């Protein structure tokens, strides 16, 4: 990370204000018109629109492996996704993904 201390605080500050503004928006404006149905429809997709695109390069081209795909990174990702999808529980996906990725390392330490 190459940001200065004040840049990091700036990021935190703007995220705090921005997040509050988003959350308070309609609660704050009494009598504001309802959100447009088309906009509402798109807003619902923001997490599934942002997170997969953020993750894909990290899985396929991990910087720790010099940007080359590795079986370990890939398997950990598949397990996390598969288990979280099947169980519908975020925690189990995390447990499965971490077990695959960090398991061999932990066993090696024992």
């Amino acid at each position, binding site marked *: 990370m190459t940001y200065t201390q004040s840049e990091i605080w700036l990021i935190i500050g703007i995220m705090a204000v921005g997040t509050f503004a988003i959350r308070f928006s309609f609660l704050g404006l009494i009598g504001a018109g309802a959100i447009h149905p088309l906009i509402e*429809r798109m807003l619902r997709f923001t997490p599934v629109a942002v997170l*997969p695109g953020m*993750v894909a390069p990290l899985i396929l081209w991990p910087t720790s492996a010099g940007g080359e795909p590795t079986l370990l990174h890939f398997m950990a990702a598949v397990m996390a*996704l598969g288990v979280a*999808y099947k169980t519908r529980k975020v925690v189990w996906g*995390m447990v499965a993904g971490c077990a695959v990725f960090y398991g061999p390392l932990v066993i090696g330490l024992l």
Partner: protein
Amino acid sequence: MTATTTKSAYWAGVRDGLPYIVMVVPFALLFGVVGIEAGLSMAQTISFSVLVIAGASQFAALQLMLENAAIGFVLLAALAVNLRMAMYSAALAPHLGAAPFWQRALIGYLNFDQSYMSSIAKYEDNPQMAMPEKVAYFLGVALVISPLWCLFTYVGARLGATVPSDIEVAFILPIAFLSMVAPMLKSLAHVAAAVVSIIVALSLAGLPAGSGLLIAAVCAMVTGGVVETWTERAKP
């Protein structure tokens, strides 16, 4: 409404908030560990959790900061993850819009996935609830979760300083993101949005960090909206 029913609504909220602890505690720990490992100070890591209280977007900001993305892109991508909460705000407004300003401001601060989802389900099942009860219930859920979120971020940050630096801690982030997204893939439209996000992000990976992601996110949101409209029309 009497103080008794308001109080019992608060405790009903507390009760419904308890199961979320299982998820909130590990995530908060993780944010603390990864925040410190990424190079944030203790104060910065904790401020993130106290001021922002939005897990996915905090992790997203951290990931882009690890990639040294331009500050504008860090903010845009991380705040984009939170845009869905404008929808929460709009959905809560008919129920809580009549509350005093300071209560609405507090609810705005605490308006995250778990507090929203529990509350809106409760309000819809119990239309006879009075407004102060609705406020009390919301705060009951939220105030179980948010102090733990902050406390365990601190615990995680303390732990983070002890994790050996040769362990690839940062790979927890993609594992966490995938685990968060998978349960959200509830319909064809959600899957389509996710696939478009991946394809566009990968093909624009050569652009400055964070910029391709924003284009990917916009394409994916439009895709989600369009596919959902189609599938609804296809229904008889």
